């Protein structure tokens, strides 16, 4: 089941090419069907795992896939985002584009469901390829693809190196989802550095972030919805299941570095987002800001912060995807992304405005929506772990988020109608359908986030009991 889940989208992506190039409806229909199937299979595959022997020397490795506790939720997010992205896709050469989305889904499912480090690294590098090809094919600037390539493959390389070295020291790489064997030796700091570099570049964190705004700018909206929402989480997921679980001593030792980088990212991204005029760049920098918070959360080794981090990973994915998709509609209709040009669309496009509004509100942490729950739990965890000043500083980006998200929303939807914008109709039902599940999930996760917090934190060497254990004690 799990193997099938990973392979299905990849194979389907190839199979699409058997269809005639012009039959975009069929391509889309198949894409949607595959995405729906992956959602169903992901749900069905919870708590299951599969393993097949792979290498026995120099270390044991296996094709071991399964839910690491956290991976399931991200996989679910991924399948949902992919479905929405395929529904919302409306680009030239649609067949190839949908194939790219499906490949991206399959490879990323591999990343989040891999229980073996080598398999993880393998899918990690694979997931970069569809994005790179998309940038080459649909991007506006050739330099963007290179920048993406340069940074991410450099990260992929250090990941490979670290994986190999870890495997040799530990004797096995079949370790994800548990607290792995304790590795020691002079090499371990370098192994840790290799992992950390890959994860921090992918997330990204200041100062490795400069590939990200331009990548988000140039990738077509449906793809960037998946990339911004889910691919960026690969780094954080890696930090949790690899750095926290397998190399806790070193994450402890270098926690301050991570916290400082996270805090800088948080503030840096928020400030830059305040003054951007390209709407996609605003969201890109807001991601830098939001994900910085999660990096801090992970570095605290606090169970509550970790639970919040996972919740916020999901929440951030949902609202980022929703914002990007909606902005994609805007761009498609108005042929511009500049806040200088845009304005006043809300009057004629209430559905579009509503979707963007809810997504933006979730992004700025409106209480009751998903983003708020994540932020609240994360920062409580940070406070709980004694980093009081960090928790205070972490509140600043929330205020800034309100400013830039409203600037974004109002700049597009409010104000007097701009006469020279091409006037188009409101969202079609299928476009609405593409955003609706994300919006619904934002509300649902905001109101009842408990399920996502239920994973077992004990594998991650946290120092303080998690929320649900606290509950057990209290009863």
């Amino acid at each position: 089941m799990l193997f099938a889940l990973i392979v299905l989208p990849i194979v389907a992506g190839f199979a699409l090419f058997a269809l005639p190039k012009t039959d975009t409806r069929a391509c889309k229909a198949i894409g949607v069907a595959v995405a729906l199937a992956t959602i169903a299979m992901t749900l069905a595959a919870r708590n299951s795992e599969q393993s097949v022997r792979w290498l026995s020397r120099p270390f044991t490795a296996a094709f071991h896939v399964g839910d690491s506790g956290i991976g399931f939720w991200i996989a679910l997010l991924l399948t949902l985002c992919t479905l929405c992205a395929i529904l919302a896709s409306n680009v030239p050469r649609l067949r190839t584009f949908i194939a790219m989305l499906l490949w991206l889904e399959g490879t990323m499912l591999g990343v989040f469901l891999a229980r073996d480090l080598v398999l993880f690294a393998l899918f990690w590098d694979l997931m970069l390829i569809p994005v790179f090809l998309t940038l080459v094919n649909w991007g506006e600037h050739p330099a963007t693809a290179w920048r993406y390539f340069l940074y991410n493959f450099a990260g992929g390389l250090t990941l490979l190196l670290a994986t190999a070295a870890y495997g040799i020291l530990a004797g096995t790489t079949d370790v994800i989802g548990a607290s792995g064997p304790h590795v020691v030796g002079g090499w371990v700091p370098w192994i840790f550095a290799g992992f950390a570099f890959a994860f921090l570049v992918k997330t990204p964190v200041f100062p490795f972030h400069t590939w990200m705004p331009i990548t988000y700018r140039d990738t077509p909206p449906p793809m960037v919805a998946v990339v911004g929402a889910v691919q960026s989480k690969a780094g954080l997921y890696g930090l949790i299941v690899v750095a926290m679980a397998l190399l806790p001593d070193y994450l402890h030792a270098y926690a301050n570095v991570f916290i400082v980088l996270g805090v800088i990212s948080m503030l840096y991204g928020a400030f830059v987002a305040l003054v951007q005029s390209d709407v996609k760049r605003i969201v890109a920098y807001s991601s830098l800001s939001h994900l910085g918070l999660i990096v801090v959360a992970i570095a605290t080794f606090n169970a509550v912060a970790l639970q919040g981090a996972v919740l916020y990973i999901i929440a951030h994915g949902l609202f980022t995807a929703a914002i990007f998709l909606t902005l994609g509609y805007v761009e498609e209709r108005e042929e511009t992304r500049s806040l200088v040009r845009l304005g006043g669309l809300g009057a004629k496009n209430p559905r579009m405005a509503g979707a963007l509004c809810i997504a933006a509100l979730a992004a700025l942490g409106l209480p009751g929506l998903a983003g708020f729950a994540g932020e609240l739990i994360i920062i409580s965890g940070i406070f709980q772990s004694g980093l009081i000043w960090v928790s205070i500083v972490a509140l600043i980006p929330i205020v800034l988020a309100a400013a830039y998200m409203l600037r974004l929303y109002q700049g597009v939807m409010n104000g007097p109608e701009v006469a020279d914008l091409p006037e188009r109709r409101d969202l079609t039902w299928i476009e609405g359908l593409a955003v609706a599940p994300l919006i619904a999930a934002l509300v649902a996760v905001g109101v009842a986030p408990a399920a996502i917090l239920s994973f077992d934190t004990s594998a991650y060497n946290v120092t303080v009991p998690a929320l649900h254990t606290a509950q057990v004690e209290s009863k």
Partner: protein
Amino acid sequence: MIHHVMGVNGFYPLLMTLWLLPLAGAVLCWTFGPQLKQLAGWLGAATLGTSFVLTLLSWSAATQNSGGALGAHQSLLSWIPGFDFGLLLDPLSLIWTFIITGVGFLIHFYSIGYMHGDKAFARFFAYMNFFVFAMLTLVLSDNFVGLLVGWGLVGLASYFLIGFWFERPSAVAAARKAFVINVVGDVAIMFAIFVIFTKVGALGFGDVFANASQLGDWVFVVCVGLFIGAAAKSAQLPLHTWLPDAMEGPTPVSALIHAATMVTAGVYLIARCAPLWSVSSDAQMLVGTIGALTALVGAILGTAQWDIKRILAYSTMSQIGYMIMGVGVGAFEGGVAHFFTHAFFKAQLFLGSGLIIHALANEQDVRRMGGLMKKMPFAFVAMLTGVLAICGIPGFSGAFSKDAVIYGALAHGHPWLYAIGLITAGITAYYMFRMIFLTFFGSYRGDVDPSELGIRHPELAGTPAHDEHEPHEHDHAPAWIMAVPVGLLIVPTVFAGWLMFGEHSWWSQFFSAQFAPEHTVATPVSDVMTTVFAVAAVLAGFAIAYLRYGAPAAMEHAIERLRTETVRMPGALANALYFDAALDALFVRTSQLLGTLFGRLIDPLVIDGGVREVALSARWLGTLVRSFQTGLVRAYALILVIGVACFVAYYAIAGGVH
């Protein structure tokens, strides 16, 4: 840990219904707006009316008291592990619910007339109902997180309603400003929540207050955090600047959200957290002082306004200053009482001003009014009762509550705050009667050229021209729809204060189980003397206002005097004491500067520049490797020989040839 729940646990369907009805109304109005047309207004009002009735029916449940558990508690759902969300209706939240649904109903009803013909009529009622739902969430929540959720949602509703006419850039900017400042408050409350969660391990009010001692010295931090939240929501210094701008919203919005209910959430928060406040005298001092200063500054700024709604906005700020001062110093009963009466008379004033604005086709500048008493006697009566109440003329509602607050400051050992309260009372009388004289007395100035009145930019001076709002002549709603709520509000505006009259008033009975007995100090003057002082101050204020605006001499030269006053307005007053400019320079400009610096300088030059150097050097090295490929066989042979020479040299040395 034993769970302490405030209120008697049970199943209260009425409570849940009155909470959720407005949400249902909002959803219906939003979803079926185009189909409902004018019915949306009636639907919105009806849900609130029903909620109000349900509130009255829940009265006995809210006031039940069994073994220390006061009020009704309804468990709802487990939000995150360990944190259950529930509803709590006790006397404190009952008072708020009463106002929210009661006054809210009247304002909704009024809005049916006021908003008649607006193209987004249904959307308006959806937002309004949503606001009521959010506000009820705020006051009915039994824990800090739920309160914060309501806190954020009312901010959102406020944002929507301030920016209701979102085609107007000024409305859009005002909405954003209000929201961002309120988020500052939200995060401060979040911080307080972190402290409580870490130190106490629970977030339910009952648990927290029962274990408040575990907070230790952190209780001051918690109080400050909560107070920053309260200050942002309730327009306390220095976070008040959004409130005057919020008048960009339709007048019923100003009446409901920015006068009667939402802006008093800070008062509710402090009253709710009375067990925390009563153990932190530092917090009392801080909050009481800021409340008093806000009352004073709001009143001073109120004297310099020309826009009728901005006058009322500053007066709201000033009056909330009183309430905050009251609950801040520990006079919870008095502070809450002032909330109660203020809700009536301020709603009354706003709705009354709405009548004027509506009749004058959206004219809001008092300089262009005048002599309206004859044209609009009903509005005059409504406004006058409101003004008398706000000034605290004995017998009118405001007198009882305001004097209780001012005296409370003295009784809790803050003579300076007492003095400020009395001075503010005088100033209040001055600017309120200034408004009355300018609006209703003298002759109508609406046909005078604005420049003669000193209005340099009429379009910027509070006279918005929003066609979509302007009702068509033939399409007026019946006049009674707007008149009835105003008329009904006159009753509590005048009489509500009597509930608080006397040593063992109904009010103090009502709250006897809610608030712990207050620790008062011996006062040099009695409460009766306080009323005398207050009346004296009010009379003084009235006298000045009369001399400047109401006396026959002033009336004769009204136009010249107004022009002079406008032109000679001191800069500090004209610019609202530079609060806006200071906040702008300190935070907004700085943030933008940093953003520009990072985005334009560090990203492209420092980081990318470094990476580019690396890439370029790789390419340069590639060219270097290439440059050896000259294509000449002999050159290759030479390279080969040199390589061999190196090899041989190494091996010769390593092999021991000396």
